[in-house]
């Protein structure tokens, strides 16, 4: 599993709505941020699916843009190279 964080930009009016719809996701921790109006989503998914997740975020009504802030895929490598 990979862990990533995204910054999801929205408008002040839509902030609550976007938060509500994203909070329904079970794989994400959502933190709203007031100014600029946006949310931080910490997500735990296989890295192959991350681009799809990013697209899903983008498709959420009220979302202006999505930016990747952090990505860690160590766990997926399963200790490769350790031996």
């Amino acid at each position, binding site marked *: 599993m990979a862990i990533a964080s995204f910054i999801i*930009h929205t408008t002040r009016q839509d902030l609550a709505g976007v938060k509500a719809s994203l909070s329904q996701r079970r794989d994400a*921790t959502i*933190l709203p941020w007031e100014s*600029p109006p946006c949310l931080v989503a910490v997500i735990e998914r296989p890295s192959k699916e991350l681009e799809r997740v990013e697209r899903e975020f983008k498709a959420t009504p009220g979302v*202006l*843009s999505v*930016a990747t802030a*952090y*990505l860690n*895929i160590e766990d997926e490598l399963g200790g490769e190279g350790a031996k």
Partner: protein
Amino acid sequence: MKKLRQFFTDTLNQITLGRKWLIIPMALAVLALAYFSYLSLAFSGTRCTWGQAQHGEVTDAQSDCYACHKKVTPKIAQDWNESKHGMLLVKCYVCHGLPDGKGAVPFSAKPDAKVACQRCHAPAIERMYTKFGVREGCNSCHGFHTNSLHHDAYAKSVSKQKAE
């Protein structure tokens, strides 16, 4: 997970209380790591690498956005070049800012129309507002990069002028 959430909320409170400086050094270290993994994943050449540390001080005279984006996002770059904004040299950074986030304009792939467009188009925005009320952004009708010097919207406005 609940514990983590609590932890975040506390942290957030701390930050909003203005004690941001406590967290910044820590976060910066994490940030460097984050950047590396992000880049090493290589979502490939479509990502802008200008913000990378080693490109921070750009000395190459060819390094304006367009020169590189001609290659990595050719359609967008060409659209811009042929649009009114391209013809009139309203360059990328005027609306998008700098990818390293250190510019005068906030960096954004989708600039906030309320700020970016207002610098020049305040009268037009006002007109649209009185005609149609609030709309989210301007781009849905007036393509930032596709409003060309030759497109037919113009023809419409001529006929409008004549009708008046």
